[in-house]
């Protein structure tokens, strides 16, 4: 058991160090950063704010991780968020109950994922292009649903999903925590995760060895669609309205970035959902940190770009090879020193 825990800790170490470094840096320029207080039965503070604001990207990153592990990518999640937000808003304003609205919205997200999955798995289209179709058309569809306006609603149940709280934590945080743990358990406590990695490493070989590749691929994209639907509901509930133009805009890039920061290779194979969640929290910490530390927000994108480049350089094959080379050199030097003695 401790060995398993230790291997988990080792896997997540770079992300944890990066997060700790960023949080420390922010706390130097903004002293009250770590302060937490309970008001009206809810925790308040910058840390909670990061967890809360990061909810959409965390959710998208969970689905994106599984898709990227199959050597795919899902560019449509931002647009699917917009579609699902629009569907949720129009369903609740047209008099459906909250439960019905949630069923319809989550169903819409899964349907979008099914479309992507069929294009990738059955029609064998490159994932980046297959999901580009929905990315381009999706915002148009969302605007069709809202008829071009920002659709507002005031159903207390739906709003509660975006801004309510439970057990001292904001509800979005509870949702992504529960959902993330659920997905991680499903893929890691069964053989599913391993089969997904097998598809990502070599799709043909896994099909030949009896893995139901098309079904698993479609399921991966459907999971991503479901994640986008939940994120879409939270985003819409947060602003009490569905904005087809801006909901989830460019969040697909943040989600992919979160997965990359989490150390999952874009070339498929081994993945870690916990690491991607940490990646998403790192991105949100940077965003919040820049705001709190009083940097002009204009620098936000440049700092983000610099951090991506830094992480990319660390992860790139040549630099990694150089590290292993140094490690090998040290390892080979030790025995010779002993012999000399």
């Amino acid at each position, binding site marked *: 058991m401790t060995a398993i825990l230790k291997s988990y800790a080792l896997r997540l170490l770079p992300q944890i160090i990066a997060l700790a470094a960023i949080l420390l840096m922010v706390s130097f320029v903004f002293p009250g950063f770590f302060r937490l207080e309970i008001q009206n039965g809810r925790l308040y503070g910058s840390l909670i704010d990061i967890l809360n604001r990061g909810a959409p990207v965390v959710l998208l990153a969970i689905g994106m991780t599984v898709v990227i592990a199959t050597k795919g990518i899902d560019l449509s999640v931002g647009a699917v968020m917009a579609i699902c937000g629009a569907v949720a808003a129009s369903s609740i304003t047209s008099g459906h109950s909250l439960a019905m609205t949630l069923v319809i919205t989550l169903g819409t997200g899964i349907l979008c994922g099914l479309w992507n999955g069929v294009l990738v798995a059955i*029609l064998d289209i490159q994932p980046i292009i297959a999901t580009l179709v929905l990315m*381009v058309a999706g915002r148009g569809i969302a605007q*069709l649903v809202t008829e071009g306006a920002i659709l507002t609603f005031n159903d207390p149940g739906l709003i509660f999903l975006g801004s309510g709280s439970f057990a001292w934590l904001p509800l979005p945080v509870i949702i992504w925590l529960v959902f993330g743990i659920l997905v991680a358990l499903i893929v890691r406590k069964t053989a599913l995760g391993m089969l997904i990695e097998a598809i990502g490493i070599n799709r043909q070989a896994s099909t030949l060895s009896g893995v139901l590749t098309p079904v698993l691929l479609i399921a991966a994209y459907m999971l991503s669609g479901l994640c986008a639907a939940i994120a879409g509901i939270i985003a819409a509930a947060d602003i009490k309205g569905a904005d087809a133009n801006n909901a989830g805009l460019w969040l697909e*890039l943040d989600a992919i*970035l979160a997965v990359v920061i989490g150390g999952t290779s874009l070339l498929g194979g081994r993945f870690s959902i916990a690491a991607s969640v940490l990646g998403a929290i790192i991105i949100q910490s940077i965003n919040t940190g820049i705001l709190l530390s009083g940097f002009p927000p204009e620098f936000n994108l440049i700092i983000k770009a610099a951090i991506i480049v830094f992480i990319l350089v660390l992860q790139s094959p040549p630099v990694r090879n150089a590290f292993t080379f140094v490690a090998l050199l040290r390892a080979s030097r030790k025995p010779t020193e002993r012999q000399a003695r």
Partner: protein
Amino acid sequence: MKPKYLPLTATIVIFVLSYALCAAQYPNILSTRVIGNLLTDNAFLGIAAVGMTFVILSGGIDLSIGSVIAFTGVFLAVVLDNTAIHPLAAFALVLLITTLFGAVMGAIIHYLEMPAFIVTLAGMFLARGMAFVLSIDSIAIKHPFYGTMKALYYKLPGGGRITLIGGLMLLVFAIGILIAHRTRFGTDVYALGGGTATAKLMGVPVGRTTILIYALSGLLAGLSGIVFSLYTSAGYSLAAVGVELDAITAVVIGGTLLTGGSGFVAGTFIGILIQGLIQTYITFDGSLSSWWTKILIGLLLFVFILMQKGIVYVSRREQRHA
């Protein structure tokens, strides 16, 4: 007919058919004024799409061009507003910056063996961030030279005008076609798209070609930014968001395989015209909402991807039988 000409032919047929359909409903769409405007309105997109065609032909992707266009616009506006530099000198300076920017991205992609997708994504953030740092306001460009350039046009029979920027786009497409099919560099790009390992074995200088491809894309994105600033007479850091998507769409509709190695620069031109035509039709109609543009273009994208799949499938079967 060779299967490699099929996507291009299909694109041209679809364009001619849809133009004929539009003309049947609104005969005025045939006037040279509309055609001239079609070229002028899509000039910046067309120029950027030529660069994107080369990148996609080589099997890569460049997500940074929209941000580079915005950066170019803001840079020109700030420089012309605050210094006495002549616009032409400013143009040369900004083209140098964007070309170098592209070259550095190409170098990172090649030497660090990173996916083009994520490197150009970082480039996208960086260029947009630089534009923000220069100015967050929309700055008007009032230099008299801009007025002179905007007044330049070639008058077509029927009152249509080919403006300076519309003509520039046609010129860039012509040069792009020449480079793709008549130079060593063009052949190298196609070879790279066929597979990096194969290209290396054939003696293609992979590193130099990769860097040159992204430098070319940066150069054309810069040129597109200049055209955009001429078109709007302003520089704004939030401008041209998502242009990279429109460019990719135009390239795919134009029949270029997104896996690289097969396609034509001329096809991209038709792809641009089809997108422009959809927008023109929606303007003519007046009752259709603008979001139909996105849905129609998405549908068109889907149809073309399916068709490409079919062609690849058929040509593989033929190869097996031969």
